[in-house]
């Protein structure tokens, strides 16, 4: 297989180079535009990935959850990845998709908060500002054909208002009462919408925890790249709280009835 698309369709000298081990003799001068040299070939696939992130608005603020698995394809490789990143005192960014890109985003956001802190003028970046910044960054990378392969959920409380938004690798954004990425968008979103929409100012913390746990249970049952160990983040006017990892009860009794499964 020829890994260099710029060589496709061009004749090669089989006497010298039977297996394309040496790049072709230079046929183009140096001073041309980027596109004239042929397509750019960067790695365009995520490697270690995180699965769904789900989030909802409730009476006191925002609640978000994500499991702690970093999958290497179908291998459940890293089982302690924290995918919910607190930024400042009133915002949490949950990331699904490529973990190394998530770590890069974490680094960028941390540097940003430090720089703002050093201005020392009483101004702090709030959730809507962080959201806008992430959007601009993701869209800019997409426009250069070098995306950060993530879908991000940005949640927080800013000046008394609850904020919940979504940004992804293409720079698509939206804000809603309930947000879910990846498999969560298919499996958890219907549950979230049914139980939350319209009631975001009445939902108590206990009810919200119940909804989150139900969604994470469904995701563990049905998403083959998930794990029953996750964290839950709560953001209120008092600040951010990320729980210790925990799991939900599951019932696999039905397996007994199926030939080949069960004990």
């Amino acid at each position, binding site marked *: 297989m020829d890994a260099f698309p710029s060589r496709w369709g061009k004749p090669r000298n089989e006497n010298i180079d039977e297996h394309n081990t040496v790049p072709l003799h230079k046929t183009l001068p140096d001073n041309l535009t980027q596109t004239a040299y042929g397509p750019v070939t960067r790695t365009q696939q995520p490697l270690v990935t995180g699965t769904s992130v789900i989030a909802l608005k409730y009476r006191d603020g925002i609640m978000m959850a994500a499991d702690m698995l970093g999958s290497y394809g179908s291998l459940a490789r890293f089982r302690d990845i924290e995918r919910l990143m607190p930024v400042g005192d009133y915002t949490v960014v949950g990331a699904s998709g490529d973990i190394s890109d998530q770590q890069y985003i974490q680094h960028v956001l941390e540097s940003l908060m430090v720089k703002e802190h050093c*201005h020392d*003028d*009483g*101004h702090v*970046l709030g959730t*809507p*500002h962080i959201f*806008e*910044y992430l959007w*601009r960054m993701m869209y800019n990378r997409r426009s250069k054909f070098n995306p950060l392969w993530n879908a991000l959920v940005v949640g927080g409380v800013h000046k008394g208002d609850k904020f919940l938004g979504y940004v992804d690798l293409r720079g698509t954004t939206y804000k809603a009462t309930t947000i879910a990425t990846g498999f969560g968008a298919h499996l958890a979103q219907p549950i979230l919408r049914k139980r939350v929409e319209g009631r975001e100012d009445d939902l108590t913390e206990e009810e919200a925890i119940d909804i989150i746990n139900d969604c994470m249970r469904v995701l563990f049952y049905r998403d083959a790249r998930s794990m029953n160990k996750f964290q839950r983040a709560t953001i209120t006017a008092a600040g951010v709280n990320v729980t210790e990892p925990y799991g939900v009860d599951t019932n696999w009794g039905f397996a007994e009835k199926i030939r080949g499964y069960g004990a």
Partner: protein
Amino acid sequence: MFRNQYDNDVSTWSPQGRIHQVEYAVEAVKQGSAAIGLRSNEYAVLLALKRSSGELASYQKKLIKIDEHMGIAIAGLTSDARVLSNFMRTEAMRSKMLYDRPIPVQRIVSTIADKAQVNTQQYGRRPYGVGLLVVGYDETGPHLYESSPSGTCFEYFAMSIGARSQSAKTYLEKNYEQFANASLDELVRHGLLALRDTLQQDKELNIHNTSIGIVGKNEDFHIIEGDGLQKYLDLLGDETSRTRRGPEERSAAESIAAESSREDSNTEVDHGDVAPMDTDN
């Protein structure tokens, strides 16, 4: 200040520890017509005296809007002011685009000050010849800053720059304690009284030569000129000129003043808002 051998370029110190070129640049600001800024706990206001080079000419614009929450008053070389205000507008827009947030006033003023400082240290450059009064309203409340060609920027409750601004400063220093809790009208009235003190003999504030800029808690920065000014000038009553006279003398004095002001404008020496290359002194 007199010419000496240490004032040829900005990268030469004098033995007294002064950089004369920077001081000369500050002099250029004093040639411009007066601009005044003052603030209360909720509003920040700019007032300026516009100058025209003759009866046929328009009045030079002194206030520039930078963003919905910020504006500046200029004194000195208008071309330098244009360059700085364009830069400020770009920075303000950048903040809105990157963070969806109006730029904090202190930051943009510090950036301008740093920009001005470069011109006081690099060989071959000249300092900006314009002083700015910047007002803005951000999350930390209303602010007023002064930026000068020397690269300094300070925050003030009230400040004035330009020709005869010392008289305005005297008024502001006497009255600044009343500004914090003043209403918007009271604040503007104080500003107009201070501006009036910078007038030359027999000149008066009118809707043509005055300019007011206001920004506040629920009020975007906007500039008031022309007919809209009348209601603010009315706050001064009859006393729109510097010399206070009784009402009977006034009408006689006014007609004399009208004649002499026509002659005066041709012999006005201060041409600070036009580039100093003008030769009609």
